[in-house]
């Protein structure tokens, strides 16, 4: 998807992607539009004055939910002598509102014909992403005295865009128009409201409760201010870390999403704008990253994922009892089961990570009530690991989709088709067992044991889980260890053969604790060594592997979120300098993106490109990239809940100067953490 000069604003999963004039003219390669509940409600939205298109002088993204465009008539030339200015101000908050102001700067009066062309193709988000719009239903347009209704009907599935204006307008089937007269220095304005409706047979909107934050602009503004005020403050000597943190915090606010089944509470959606929905993996990992700063997200994420936990076998949705969902969608393709996202369960890491997050959340918050509330779901998740996930019967989590048509082939975070390979570059058969998922399973058992012993009053279950964890660790260290290279294989194929490539996944193993202590140092050397580390971060796949490509999606690019967990893992095993090296590289990269880390950037050596080369993806900000600076801060400051208080053990690189994090919330109330850069990274690399 292209993303040149596109402006985005959003509220929950209602968002606008448009050109820098505010116009929308969707084409297969320019996926602009007004979107809500995974459906495009406007694919044309073009403003003209006396039949002329407008030209952008400037635009402001004021907040994530509002923007403003300053325009003049006529096409761009090197000199503009305009007698008219047009200002478009718009906001989303449930519906979409646009205020148009026209100013006459001429000394003569003017007569103007103002027109807004409006149309919608009602494309499903999946059709937009895949550039296929082939509608099976009927598109209609109804002109009423005071509004224009654009609609789409397929059986009982009805979506409508209703356009109305504060100033009386002439409506026709392709838009609305005004004829106005402006005296010198006079101005005119109108407010256009665009409602997006999912109409049920009884005329009711099916989205009751889907809305995220308030719907009014002021409510949204207050909500954002409160969100920032409630979070810890970060001050840094050089300012860069603090501004990256602030950027992340605002982006996290924008990424909050309120699903149908939770009555207004919010969880982090995966990415803006195309992934404004709940994803098991992305939501959980983002919560783990942000726990010290915005713990309320974890509580709602755990609750909503529990409420939608799999309860039966469904081959189309890859659902099993106990499995945590992968992705939920509300559009036409999900409704008519052309896509399985109602919800789809095809991921193998979300289920163990659910237990990991519940334990980590309790360690920070002391929220025992939630641990008790979610006992049944946690047990079901732990049971899933040992039963339905073990497709080979040898004690590992495996995946092989049952939905061979629209299901996901790779059900781990590296989910592209060619992400899992042998060192000769060939792809293994299914089922596959990737290494990091075994680490998550180990961690889930260890943490599950603590929950069972301390809160569920079930020491026998705790003993059993600990026994299983120890056995898994032993088995894993035998089966996955690549003796020649001294690292863990990326995956096993069903015959037990290793996908023996060196990959970033080994860093997640450190985080989960499944790595034998005597092997950790070797992993640390690999992670900051020349094959994996570029100077900015750790590549997904090491240089020298057959499929290595510095801009290969999961075969060589650097993923900031991946690096944040790697750094956390290094710190866990005592490699504070190596963790700081990675944290410092990623935070340096962030400054090239104004504090907003992309999903991924190129795996080129730092000294070669001098700046991080962004991998072209459609989503920004993306939740787990947004959470990355927060987890790196936690890691560098060594923030760790310990027997009811917050332990702080900072290990900062020298160049980072002094950093303070104030008012860190948790079971201790609120405490501050201070750190000063003392690690000499130059010395380390010698």
């Amino acid at each position, binding site marked *: 998807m292209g993303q040149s000069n596109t402006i985005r604003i959003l509220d929950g999963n209602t968002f606008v992607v448009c050109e820098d004039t505010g116009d929308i003219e969707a084409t297969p390669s320019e996926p602009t539009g007004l979107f809500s509940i995974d459906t495009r409600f406007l694919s044309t939205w073009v403003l003209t004055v006396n039949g002329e298109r407008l030209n952008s002088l400037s635009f402001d993204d004021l907040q994530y939910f509002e923007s403003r465009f300053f325009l003049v008539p006529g096409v761009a030339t090197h000199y503009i002598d305009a007698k008219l200015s047009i200002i478009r101000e718009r906001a989303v908050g449930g519906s979409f509102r646009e205020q148009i102001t026209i100013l006459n700067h001429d000394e003569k009066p003017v007569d103007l014909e103002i027109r807004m062309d409006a149309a919608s193709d009602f494309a499903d988000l999946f059709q937009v992403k895949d550039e296929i719009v082939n509608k099976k239903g009927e598109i209609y347009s109804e002109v009423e005295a005071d509004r224009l209704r654009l609609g789409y009907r397929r059986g009982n599935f009805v979506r409508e865009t209703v356009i109305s204006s504060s100033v009386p307008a002439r409506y026709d089937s392709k838009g609305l128009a005004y004829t106005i007269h402006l005296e010198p220095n006079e101005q005119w304005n109108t407010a256009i409201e665009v409602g997006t409706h999912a109409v049920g047979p009884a005329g009711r909107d099916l989205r009751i409760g889907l809305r995220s934050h308030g719907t009014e602009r002021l409510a949204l503004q207050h909500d954002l201010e409160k969100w920032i005020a409630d979070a810890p403050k970060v001050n840094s000597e050089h300012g860069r870390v603090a501004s990256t943190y602030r950027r992340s915090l605002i982006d996290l606010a924008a990424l909050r999403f309120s699903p149908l*089944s939770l009555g207004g509470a919010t969880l982090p959606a995966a990415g803006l704008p195309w992934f404004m929905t709940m994803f098991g993996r992305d939501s959980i990992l983002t919560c783990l990253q942000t726990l010290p700063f915005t713990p309320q997200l974890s509580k709602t994420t755990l609750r909503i994922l529990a409420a939608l*936990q799999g*309860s*039966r076998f469904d081959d189309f949705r890859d659902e099993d009892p106990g499995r945590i969902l992968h992705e939920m969608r509300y559009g036409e393709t999900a409704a008519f089961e052309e896509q399985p996202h*109602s919800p789809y369960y095809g991921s193998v890491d979300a289920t163990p990570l659910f237990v990991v997050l519940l334990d980590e959340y309790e360690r920070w918050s002391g929220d025992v009530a939630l641990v008790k509330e979610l006992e049944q779901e946690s047990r079901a998740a732990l049971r899933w690991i040992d039963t339905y996930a073990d497709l080979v019967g040898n004690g590992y989590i495996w995946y092989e989709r049952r939905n061979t048509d629209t299901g996901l082939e790779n059900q781990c975070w590296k989910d592209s088709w060619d992400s899992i390979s042998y060192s000769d570059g060939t792809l293994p058969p299914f089922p596959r067992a990737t290494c990091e998922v075994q680490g998550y399973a180990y961690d889930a058992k260890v943490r599950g044991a603590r929950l069972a012993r301390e809160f569920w009053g079930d020491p026998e279950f705790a003993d059993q889980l600990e026994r299983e964890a120890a056995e898994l660790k032993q088995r894993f260290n035998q089966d996955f260890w690549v003796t020649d290279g001294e690292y863990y294989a990326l995956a096993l194929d069903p015959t037990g053969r290793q996908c023996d490539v060196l990959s970033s996944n080994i860093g997640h193993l450190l985080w989960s604790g499944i790595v034998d202590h005597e092997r950790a140092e070797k992993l640390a050397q690999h992670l900051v060594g020349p094959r994996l580390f570029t100077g900015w971060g750790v590549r997904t796949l090491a240089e020298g592997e057959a499929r290595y490509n510095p801009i290969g999606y999961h075969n060589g690019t650097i993923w900031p979120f991946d690096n944040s967990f790697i750094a956390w893992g290094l710190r866990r095993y005592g490699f504070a300098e190596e963790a700081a090296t990675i944290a410092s590289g990623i935070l340096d990269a962030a400054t090239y993106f104004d504090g907003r880390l992309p999903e991924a950037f190129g795996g080129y050596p730092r000294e070669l490109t001098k700046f991080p080369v962004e991998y072209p993806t459609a989503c920004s900000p993306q939740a787990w990239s947004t959470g990355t600076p927060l987890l790196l801060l936690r890691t560098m400051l060594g923030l760790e809940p310990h027997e009811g208080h917050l332990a702080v053990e900072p290990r900062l690189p020298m160049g980072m100067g002094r950093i303070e994090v104030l008012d860190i919330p948790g079971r201790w109330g609120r405490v501050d953490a201070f750190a000063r850069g003392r690690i000499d990274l130059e010395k380390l690399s010698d």
Partner: protein
Amino acid sequence: MGDATMRFFEDLDRRGYEPLLAKTSGTLRIDLHEGAQTRHWLLTIDHGRLNVSQEDREADTVIGTSPALFDDIATGREHGLAALLRGDMTVMGDARLVVQVERIFPGSPDALGPRRRFSGEVD
């Protein structure tokens, strides 16, 4: 009214308790419309304890659909949430209750479930 719907509710009534709804309380009425006629089922949930009747009483959540579609949902041939998104089933009131209750409907009768590679079905 379909036999499957009848069997589904009779089974719930007999079981009297559903662990998947242990945290759920509320009343859900299902209105099955056929022509001018509407049949009602009222499911009362109290922390997982279930009570079924055919009363037309006020409820926290009211679902409306056709008897044929509900029969298919009751046997796992159709999926409740997809039917909701399609507009073939409507909901009034607290939508959370529908999402919770939807989980107790059976999966597809044709589902194979996970297949163990060397030893067939997973236990």
